[in-house]
């Protein structure tokens, strides 16, 4: 299913032979082509890269890219990507998946990726629902719960037939609380901005999270392209993305959501580098014989 890529990488070179199984109009198409563009812009060698995903419509993405891919189980993108990067710091490692995969079943892994800060780019295709299982509520659903101070009629999902009463979590606010070193939001109907954000995220040294609104016209029909357009705004030029409190304040407004790079900084230790230092310190001088000798009965 994969193709060998030439030395110059155009966006097309990243396209695999497998046709996406997504529904017509699915936002994930936009994410895929923005990713192609970003990879090309960053000159990532497709033979030296891996895309790791969980389970969901969005998690089928790796198969559509002509590179190495790891389509795993539901919610385990980050541990797998972290182990891979630790073992192979030479590779470009990209994690992808859905909002259910990343913030519900896999949500417990995020703060720890933040702590370790490996050089991994994590792209969440956030359609505010569970697509593959056909339309249940997700932790980011009911967006927005409150509109201009007015409580909106709660949305009904297959598992909340009388209206959802649970609040949604804000992936950006929590990312800032965990001090993830690159935090951005994109929208799959703003392809150029999205490709640019992806490219910045890939270039960022450390863990980066890009939450992308990626509409699901099949199971979340109300939340169309227009719905998201009217509820998002570009991060203002004046915003200083290294100011953590300002980034937090920018993200917690529930009327409208910022698009762009919201928070980032470069001064956080990175577990991959630290481990490399450690190995370098020992300079591969491990000797099993000496190790055993340390246990010699005296």
């Amino acid at each position, binding site marked *: 299913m*994969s193709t060998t890529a030439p030395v110059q990488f155009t966006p097309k070179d990243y396209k695999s032979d497998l046709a996406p199984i997504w529904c017509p109009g699915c936002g994930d198409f936009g994410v895929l082509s923005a990713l192609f563009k970003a990879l090309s812009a960053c000159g990532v060698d497709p033979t030296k890269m891996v895309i790791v995903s969980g389970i969901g419509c969005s998690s089928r993405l790796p198969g559509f890219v002509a590179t190495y891919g790891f389509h795993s189980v539901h919610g385990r993108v980050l541990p797998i*990507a972290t182990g891979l*990067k630790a073992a192979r710091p030479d*590779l470009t490692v990209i994690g992808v998946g859905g909002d259910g995969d990343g913030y519900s079943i896999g949500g417990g892994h995020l703060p720890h990726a933040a702590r370790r800060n490996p050089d991994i780019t994590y792209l969440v295709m956030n359609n505010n629902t569970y697509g593959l299982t056909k339309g249940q509520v997700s932790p980011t659903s009911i967006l927005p719960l409150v509109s201009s101070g007015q409580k909106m009629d709660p949305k009904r999902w297959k598992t909340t037939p009388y209206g959802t009463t649970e609040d949604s979590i804000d992936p950006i606010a929590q990312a800032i609380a965990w001090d993830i070193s690159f935090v951005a939001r994109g929208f799959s109907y703003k392809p150029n901005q999205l490709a640019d954000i992806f490219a910045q995220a890939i270039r960022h040294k450390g863990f980066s999270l890009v939450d992308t609104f990626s509409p699901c016209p099949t199971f979340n029909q109300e939340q169309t392209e227009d719905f998201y357009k009217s509820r998002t705004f570009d991060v203002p030029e004046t915003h200083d993305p290294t100011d953590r409190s300002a980034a937090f304040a920018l993200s917690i407004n529930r009327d409208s959501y910022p698009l762009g790079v919201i928070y980032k900084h470069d001064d956080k230790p990175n577990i991959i580098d630290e481990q490399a230092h450690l190995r370098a310190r020992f300079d591969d001088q491990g000797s099993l014989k000496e190790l055993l000798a340390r246990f*010699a009965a005296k």
Partner: protein
Amino acid sequence: MPQKKPTARPTDVVLRIVGESGEGTVTLGDVLVELFTGLGLDIYTFQTFPAEIKGGTVMYQLRTKSGVTLSPGDVSDVLVALNNQGFGLFGDNLRSGGILLYNSDAFSPPVDSTRTDYALPITTLARAEKDKVRHEVSGEQLKRLPAPVNTVGLGALLRLVNAPLEPAEEYLGRVFARKGEAIVRMNISALHTGATCVAEQIGDRETPHVGARPDHRDRIMVTGNQMLCMGAIAAGLKFFGGYPITPASEIMEFLAKELPAFGGNVIQAEDEIAALGMCLGASFGGVPSMTATSGPGLSLMVEQINLAGQAEIPVVIVDVQRGGASTGLPTKTSQGDLNLAVYGVHNESPRIVLAASSVGDVFWTAVEAVNLAEAYQCPVILLSEQALATRRSTVPPPAIERVTVTERLKPAEADLGPDFKRYLDTPSGVSPMAVPGIPGGMYTTTGIEHNEFGDPTYTPDTATKARNKRFRKMDTLLAERGHEFVRTWGDAGRVELGVIAFGATEGVVREATERLRYAGHLVAHLHLRLIRPLPVAPINEFAVRCKRLLVVELNYSGQLAGWLRVNTDMTFEAFHRDDGRPFSSHDIEDEMLRILSD
């Protein structure tokens, strides 16, 4: 390897120390281990751990023998009781005619003519020793200076078993050096005080001799967990992801310290699910990977073990079994996770299950585990047990020059390209595996059923072929190496009774078998190192020469017995128990005798 009939029962000494946890009981045991090992003796220890974090009663049993030691010993020759509670809880296994050394400052044991008692006013003596140096140390130091209670006990005990005091003097000099000359002197004096106190009571009675073997000093003193780590390192381990859990945590702690020098990484994960996930990622990247846990963690790993089986990702999962279901008896031993290791998967994907049998053996089992994972591209579960994992033993250092490292099958240049088949259907079932970075080897691995390219496919035909290919690897393993994974002892020809066992019962079953052979019975013992796939051929070869068969294991329902019933047609009797205690060799001997005599 059946052996010659033993001609004499080897002599050995079993010591048991009981007392309050945190009050030196364990330290005393550890020091004895070090001193005896220094004499060239072999050591086998067994401890109980209290439920409390600190405090509670502990027991430290230590068997020392001039030659291979297979078990901690069923009955003790010398019991050291530092308090009454310990004496009550753990004082019951002193052999008739044995020796009791008790802390006479703490309690007086009831009179019992079947043993010889030695009273040691340990606190009084220790305080007096401290008083002697009172004016030589600063007031501040004096306040924090404990009376040398342990050292008094050590001296008494060494004298009791006729061990030389010089190595202990040297040891005390070394350990207390940085506390100053006065403290060293206090301890050496305390050592002799203890020895003298006992010597006066011994008179001309005969007490045990631990002896010494000056020719026999190439031993190492290790725990099973440490040996496991060194085996994995020997086989090329490069990544470890883990989450703390008793009694497996030591593995991660050891590797965190040692693996970097061997070019590897250790990450403490946020839970066992992440730990295994990290290993799968690292292994996909091409490096041998391992995690280690105990029952509760193994439970959480089930989903991803299945992914590894289905997507054919090499990985080693160590399960250091502990007692009880759920949180159960976390500091006790058991062989209760065989079922979960063998069957723990929804639907079915291949896996290998190995079991380690002793502190020495676990090194080689770890070597095999890493090698088999790489060779057959599947998860390997290595069953260890609390009883061997946390025990310090003297063992000969493993012959590391005999370690061979198996590498994953790599694609040939010709296989690579746009049509690279990661899951090529081969006669052995093993397919060449590309790792990221190889041009022309690109593929997406997936837990969804897939064709040879790795593309998701749902047709009955593909599903059948793909599954057959994966399971064929297990047939290949048995055909290529099945016979290597059983060990036999005892009589070589037809026997009255054959015992089948696995894991850490090896030592006690061997001891029981040896004793019965010594007593004139025809008996043999087959020990399984590979549980899944089950090496049926060598088991059957063993079974045909046994008139009767007994399956022995340390779990509630007889899990190995069940697994043998699923896979073979043998008839056998089953002996199993699971209450936190390991078997003694007499437990096994009694059961064997019951069958032999009915």
